[in-house]
């Protein structure tokens, strides 16, 4: 159960509701982002459980807009192994469409899988892969 948060802002990747990876672009508001992410974790859990245990494999990975605040929009994505990705973007960034968010999550998921494939990575560790960092950086640059 991991979290990844990407924002104009922050990238946080959580596992079992503790962070695996955190990255934010303007670093001063990081604490605020942490707070928002933690609240949104509840929303994600709710969405997951709402889909139910009925047909797990049909569950959408992309959770969509979790909830909008006045300043930020929070998007969620969860993998089948309950690794949660959370992306926080600036509301002023209206150019971002749903498809773009989806593709960004997909890229994140692919990179995350690559990190998983590394036998030296133990699930639950903080992610220290340079390739992953590079990918996230490029994504955030693109967003901002």
């Amino acid at each position, binding site marked *: 159960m991991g979290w990844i948060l990407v924002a104009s802002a922050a990238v946080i990747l959580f596992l079992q509701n503790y962070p695996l990876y955190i990255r934010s672009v303007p670093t001063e508001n990081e604490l605020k982002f942490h707070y928002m992410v933690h609240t949104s974790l509840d929303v994600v859990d709710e969405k997951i459980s709402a889909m139910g*245990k009925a047909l797990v494999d049909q569950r959408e990975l992309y959770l969509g807009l979790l909830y909008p605040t006045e300043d930020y929009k929070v998007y969620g994505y969860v993998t089948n192994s309950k690794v949660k990705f959370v992306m926080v973007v600036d509301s002023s960034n209206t150019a971002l469409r749903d498809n773009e968010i989806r593709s960004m999550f997909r890229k994140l998921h692919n990179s995350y899988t690559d990190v998983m494939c590394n036998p030296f990575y133990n699930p639950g560790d903080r992610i220290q892969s340079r390739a992953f960092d590079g990918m996230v950086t490029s994504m955030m640059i693109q967003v901002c």
Partner: protein
Amino acid sequence: MEAAAGGGCGSGPPLLLSEGEQQCYSELFARCAGAAGGGPGSGPPEAARAAPGAATAASGPVADLFRASQLPAETLHQITELCGAKRVGYFGPTQFYIALKLIAAAQSGLPMRIESIKCELPLPRFMMSKTDAEIRFGNMAELHGTKVQIPYLITEKNTFKRMDDEDKQETQSPTMSPLASPPSSPPHYQRVPLSHGYSKLRSSTEQVHPAPYEARQPLVQPEGPSLGGPGAKPLRHQASLIRSFSVERELQDNNSSYPDEPWRITEEQREYYVNQFRSLQPDPSSFISGSVAKNFFTKSKLSIPELSYIWELSDADCDGALSLPEFCAAFHLIVARKNGYPLPEGLPPTLQPEYLQAAFPKPKWECALFDSYSEPVPANQQLRDLNRMEKLSIKDVADFPVPTQDVTGDDKQALKSATDEALPKDMSEDSASKSGLLPPPPALPPRPCPLQSEQGSEAELHPQLNRAPSQAAESSPTKKDIPYSQPPSKPIRRKFRPENQATENQEPTTAVGGPASVATVKPHPTVQKQSSKQKKAIQTAIRKNKEANAVLARLNSELQQQLKEVHQERIALENQLEQLRPVTVL
């Protein structure tokens, strides 16, 4: 050494080597043997081949050396036959020296017969490639700088008479020798290059070797029968030697400092890596799983983050396992890191898997020696063609090592011991499978069912990302086999299953594929190139499937947990029911 060479020659005439030749040959032999033995564990083939009391030159370095002599493949074939290596199956010192003599004879234009080597011959000339030279012949220039000259002088004297005509013709073609004036005036030539040569010798430029040759010419002149001869002959030698040694010179400079090429894998290193790979995974065409590699690399005592980064760099297709080129790249990075080189930002071009596969195609130096020397590439192409032609089932996976075995086996039967044959088979398998091939022999009995079903389920995941895994596992393996054109090595390599299954696959198929037609082997190599593009596409699919794999495994564990929870809930509910029941009953 001479006596041994003479005595061990067998059917050939006793071999008399001049001092210079002796030195040169023993040096070459030591290099060839040393290069092979340089890696820790050259493996059983080396041991099996050890002649009593003498080392043997490995076929790889020897093949490279022979090719460097720039003789046509046919000639090299003949030489190997004549020298007796084919007969005895290895290159002992005797065979090696005879071969070198024959090379020298061939280069001098003599016909390929045993009798040719009875006469005094010049030293064989070898144009080395970059990596070969720097390993084997780096110091030859110095070695031969002075010592060889006098005996050479003696040997040359006799050859001059014979070779006059030939030489005169050759001297008309001017050369490659940058420093010799046109050969029309041999005496002039001799004077000019002499001073040139010495001065250049001191300034240690590329003309190191030729300089001593030139020095000899004034000596030869009074003795030589004609001026044309001595002048011409050394000129010809010199020309080629200048070329070869200038190359070596550059190489030596490069090699010593390695300023921009710390990431280039040398031949010795490559052999060592390959041997290590084989110790972890007997089949060089298959993969080393992540956990095995992790255990192995942690022995290097590098920190985990560094190892993790090295893995990231070297596992180019991010599949969680290391193929042979990936393994070599990773090993090389570890070695570099241990020697203090900082890890690069990205995988250097010389360590890319494609580059490594191209630069060191494994079948070449194993089977090429006794195969046609110009044929390793066509062999690969044939493999590729075959793959292309028939996109077939996974069962072909098993078959595919076998045809390649046949190819190499045919060529080598007379040559090597059984252990040696195992090696070349592996090599050709390696190259073929690395290119992602799957040559399906036409008629093959179906593979053992359990293996098939496992592979079937594995195969399911690969092409069908969205399919429910439960369905996939149960669907008939044969049905899936046919549309599944994936190269065999990938499904064999399993992330979550040990590679002993892969070897299991190989073994029954080896037995089964025995009767596979050799004809199918021919088309193999051409397929290889074409499927490289397929390989790329397939690799992206593999990545996605890997992701699905990881996800599904976790899903599995989570489902187990959910199941437990549900059980508990049920138990709780039943308890409640029990408690409530007495009320309702009443």
